[in-house]
């Protein structure tokens, strides 16, 4: 470490931050790749199929299927990117970048463990809201720059949907910050620590908000059952019809990175982040104190569970009609979240509230 510090001299902090960013983004991209495989496998089993089971590494039979994401990526990488006639080339290229930038940048403030966080800033929640709100530009620009009616219609639908659900999400985050009494994500997790394990987490006092947040998250990432943005039965594939090759893959990466982000945020804000669900006393009486140890593996387990639920929703529910989506966002979620802000505010004035700092 000292050697590198001397090597880079005054630029060392910048280089070190860059190294940390790469250390977050690379595993994230790997997770995205394998989330696509998990999705196909899970949905495959739910529909009594096998899913991808051919591509393997070096011909090892028990790794069958595990090479699929790599093969898909390679295929998309070598495909030609076609810019449609009359498209606005500069914006056409800019759109995928605008889509993936917020999906990556939001990870800067995510606390993976008590000490493992890139930027431990006070306004973490606000930063997340601001950055994820920019994701919609990638979609709008893609739809407009493609010079295609289908792409444009898909972009309009998707943007309207994202803006609507962002409101419900924003109010849900207001509830979380009221409960956490801080805008710092790490502080919120620390407040959920207690002697009762998973009963200390915020999903109990904020249960309606937890549901609203997860469902809005599904809608926000344009996933089934809210994927009218790319309703293939009506408008082919929505905003990315005209994209091919790696440009399409970048949109895909952004969607899945956003999914993982939403799942991580739900785990941190409502499911105790890196905290263990097992109370100390129970773990000790079982003779396995390691069960009560907090750490990154618990966060990974919670994120995986929420992601599995996302895939489960996709396999289970039929697609919403567009007016029903808007109704759910504006007429159901918005009143529920605002109502719960009032309930929470009243609750916090009584001695029944036990989550004080």
């Amino acid at each position, binding site marked *: 470490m000292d050697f590198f510090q001397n090597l880079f001299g005054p630029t060392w902090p910048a280089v070190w931050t860059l190294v940390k960013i790469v250390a977050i983004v690379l595993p994230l991209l790997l997770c995205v790749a394998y989330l696509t495989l998990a999705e196909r496998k899970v949905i495959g089993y739910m529909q009594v199929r096998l899913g991808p089971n051919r591509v393997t590494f070096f011909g090892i039979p028990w790794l069958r299927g595990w090479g699929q994401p790599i093969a898909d990526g390679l295929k998309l990488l070598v495909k030609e990117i076609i810019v449609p006639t009359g498209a606005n080339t500069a914006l056409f290229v800019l759109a995928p970048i605008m889509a993936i930038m917020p999906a990556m940048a939001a990870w800067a403030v995510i606390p993976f463990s008590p000490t493992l966080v890139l930027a431990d800033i006070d*306004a973490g929640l606000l930063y997340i809201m601001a950055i994820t*709100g920019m994701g919609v530009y990638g979609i*709008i620009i893609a739809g407009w720059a493609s010079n295609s009616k289908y792409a444009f219609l898909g972009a309009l639908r998707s943007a309207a949907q994202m803006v609507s659900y962002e409101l419900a999400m924003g109010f849900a985050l207001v509830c979380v910050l009221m409960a956490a009494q801080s805008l710092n994500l790490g502080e919120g997790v620390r407040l959920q620590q207690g002697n009762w394990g998973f009963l200390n987490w915020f999903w109990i006092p904020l249960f309606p908000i937890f549901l609203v947040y997860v469902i809005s998250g599904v809608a926000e990432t344009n996933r089934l059952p809210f994927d009218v943005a790319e309703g293939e039965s009506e408008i082919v594939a929505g905003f990315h019809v005209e994209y091919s090759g790696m440009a399409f893959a970048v949109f895909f990466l952004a969607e899945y990175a956003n999914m993982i982000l939403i799942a991580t945020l739900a785990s941190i804000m409502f499911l105790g982040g890196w905290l263990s669900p097992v109370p100390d006393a129970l773990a000790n009486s079982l003779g396995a104190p390691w069960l009560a140890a907090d750490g990154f593996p618990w966060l990974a387990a919670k994120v995986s569970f929420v992601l599995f639920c996302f895939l489960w929703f996709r396999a289970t529910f039929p697609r919403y009609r567009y007016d029903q989506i808007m109704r759910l966002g504006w007429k159901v979620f918005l009143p529920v979240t605002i109502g719960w802000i009032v309930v929470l505010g009243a609750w916090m004035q009584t001695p029944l509230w036990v989550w004080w700092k």
Partner: protein
Amino acid sequence: MTFNEFVFYFFSTILILAALGVITARNPVHAALLLVLAFFTSAAIWVQLQAEFLAVALVLVYVGAVMVLFLFVVMMLDINMARLREGFWNYLPLGALVALLLVAEMVLVLGGQYAGFAGAPAPPPLPAGYSNTKELGRLVYTEYVYPFEIAAVILLVAIVAAIALTLRRRKQTKHQDPARQTSVRREDRVRIVSMPSEKRD
């Protein structure tokens, strides 16, 4: 030049170029996107001033919501530049007056030190645990709670007025009630009739 100054000039250059682009761009969509860039860069400059709440609020409100709707409208409009230019000479005197006033105000603000105004002294350096968000929240909800509430009510009135202006009920529109749709039972739709089968002669 310290690193801090370098960052400031870097963002300022982008901000000025983007702002110039907004008023010179031929394509309205390009202009709107450059405005987004200008907002984002000014948020970055605010972060440098340790006003992180204002910076994030700027991105959240203007970049995340207002400009999205703006872009929406601009994209769907078929803007005819020739018709927009029609009234140029009629509007020129008023526009020039506003521009002159703006220039004069900016000269007064920026050139105040040459005219002998010392201006406000630089604020003292902030303590270590200072949180801009917390300070702002404390002020807004204690000292300035009434102005804050009044501003909120005015905004609410504006929202209600905007909705009331555009709301019109058309009699012939057909509405669906999703609650009724989902609570439908088989008995509401299908009537099972028991009929004796007729004899074939």
